[in-house]
């Protein structure tokens, strides 16, 4: 059969952002794939070298659109590590809550994308709608719905509003009850199972070598989670389970995410229950004259798609020497995709992309 070259993207409903996949196809079968990025390069890392530490802060949340809080938290922790700034206890609890809220909203977005890519269009309607309830809470807490600019070196910007706790717990009850519907419509759906089981398989013995992280790695049966391996903020004081499923296909990744969704709800309930009183931020020095000692640091956390790391080098001046962002999509979207796409069907490309959590803005920054 004749081999055809097919360019999928950069504008395509099945692609999870602006990137292009160059495919060699034979009929319906993919022979070779190559990822091209560059459509969203904004030069953030370069821009941050020209700015003071606090001026760089509004930039970092733009690095990944569905997960701004992850970037804010990483940046804040990197600056704190380099400068030796302490964070009050209550701020750490609030930060953890924000991270888990971010995980929930990201999983809701993923559920919509994953089932939408299989033609189950009711799910996106539901999950995007439910995600808006979470965004309402974000708006109440931070003032912004998508970009929050909330986690700040030294703490968080504002305390919890009055009555926030009750509304948050109500929302958690609501999301938990919704999970039954999601399970019926998506996770136990015959079409979803048929298309997800055995598709986009990552072999267990290759997963670590290929740099797979996060729910995708746990979907192959290997249990690694930054929250447990290297507890940051207050994760060592919370009780939660990290699920693993054997198989390495889209379905096992979906089950991992489903389990983690419920765990996040339980974590937020624990935080709401145990959060201590106290100050929420430590004052930083005059940000225009704030010199940070020379040093290197690498901070990481578990985002909804895996290890999200920030490498930061400071040279003792008011400005950053270098910051480098390691998003999970940098590996998942380029080298891993080139490994697992060949052999699968053309119709499964967007399904696989969604299940890996590929987010182009963080590949290019």
């Amino acid at each position, binding site marked *: 059969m004749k081999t055809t070259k097919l360019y999928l993207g950069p504008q395509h409903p099945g692609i999870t952002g602006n990137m292009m996949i160059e495919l060699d196809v034979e009929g319906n079968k993919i022979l070779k794939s190559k990822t091209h990025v560059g459509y969203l*390069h904004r030069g953030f890392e370069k821009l941050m070298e020209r700015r003071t530490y606090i001026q760089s802060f509004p930039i970092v949340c733009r690095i990944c659109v569905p997960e701004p809080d992850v970037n804010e938290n990483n940046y804040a922790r990197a600056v704190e590590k380099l400068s030796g700034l302490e964070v009050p206890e209550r701020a750490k609890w609030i930060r953890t809550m924000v991270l888990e809220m971010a995980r929930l909203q990201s999983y809701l977005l993923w559920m919509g994308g994953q089932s939408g890519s299989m033609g189950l269009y009711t799910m996106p309607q539901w999950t995007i709608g439910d995600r808006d309830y979470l965004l309402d809470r974000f708006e109440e807490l931070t003032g912004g719905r998508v970009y929050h600019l909330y986690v700040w070196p030294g703490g968080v910007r504002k305390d919890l509003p009055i009555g926030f706790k009750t509304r948050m717990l109500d929302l958690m009850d609501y999301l938990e009850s919704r999970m039954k519907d999601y399970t019926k419509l998506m996770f136990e759906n015959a079409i979803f199972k048929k298309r997800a089981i055995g598709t986009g398989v990552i072999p267990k013995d290759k997963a*670590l070598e*290929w*740099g797979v992280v996060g729910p995708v790695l746990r979907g192959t049966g290997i249990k690694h989670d930054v929250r447990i*391996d290297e507890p940051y903020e207050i994760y060592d004081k919370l009780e939660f389970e990290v699920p693993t499923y054997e198989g390495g296909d889209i379905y096992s990744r979906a089950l991992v995410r489903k389990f983690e969704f419920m765990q996040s709800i339980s974590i937020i309930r624990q935080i709401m229950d145990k959060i201590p009183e106290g100050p929420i931020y430590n004052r930083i020095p*005059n940000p225009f004259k704030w010199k940070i000692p020379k040093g290197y640091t690498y901070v990481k956390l578990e985002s909804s798609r895996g290890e999200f790391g920030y490498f930061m080098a400071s040279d003792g001046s008011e400005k950053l020497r270098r910051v480098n962002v390691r998003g999970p999509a940098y590996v998942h979207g380029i080298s891993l995709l080139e490994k697992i796409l060949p052999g699968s069907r053309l119709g499964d490309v967007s399904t696989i992309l969604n299940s890996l959590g590929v987010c182009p803005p963080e590949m290019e920054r």
Partner: protein
Amino acid sequence: MGFSKLTETKVLLKQYFKDIISIEEGGEQRLIIDLQSKDITSMINHLKDFMDFKHLSMISCVDWPEENKFEIVYILTSYSKNIVLMLKTKIDRKNPKLQSIMSLWPQAVTYEIELNEMFGVFFEGNDRMGEEFILEDWDDIPPMRRDFDSLEYANKNFKFRDERKDKKIIREFISEHYDEWRKK
């Protein structure tokens, strides 16, 4: 627990590699190691095969034009030891060359292509070196180098709108008055 493994790794590495320039602890579960550029491949090989540093977190580069050096940083993670290693090596800025580690990790290719494009570091043995990754038809110096001035480039290539007549330099204004405002 984490502390003892950190010290153990430190001692082991010191014993095995006599040529290490310096090795220090950079906070909890972090080791910062300075190496000569010729040792980097054998060190990474040893770390991956015998010391269980199986996960390549990232390859990064820091530019030090005042010393005329590029500093390449390899960040490796060991899941079993819970340690993150930062292997640093300084190479000449005029002729930046290093051995590729693409045979150890397939994803290293992407990092190396990006460093080649953004800093002009050449990785020997990477067959996809020189490929366009993010930039298209770039003819200036590699843009992440410190001596590439992004503001100057923007001024040269893009047109700005006319300024307002009543403008003042807000940044300096705030900086002068910041301390006195904060007292209020």
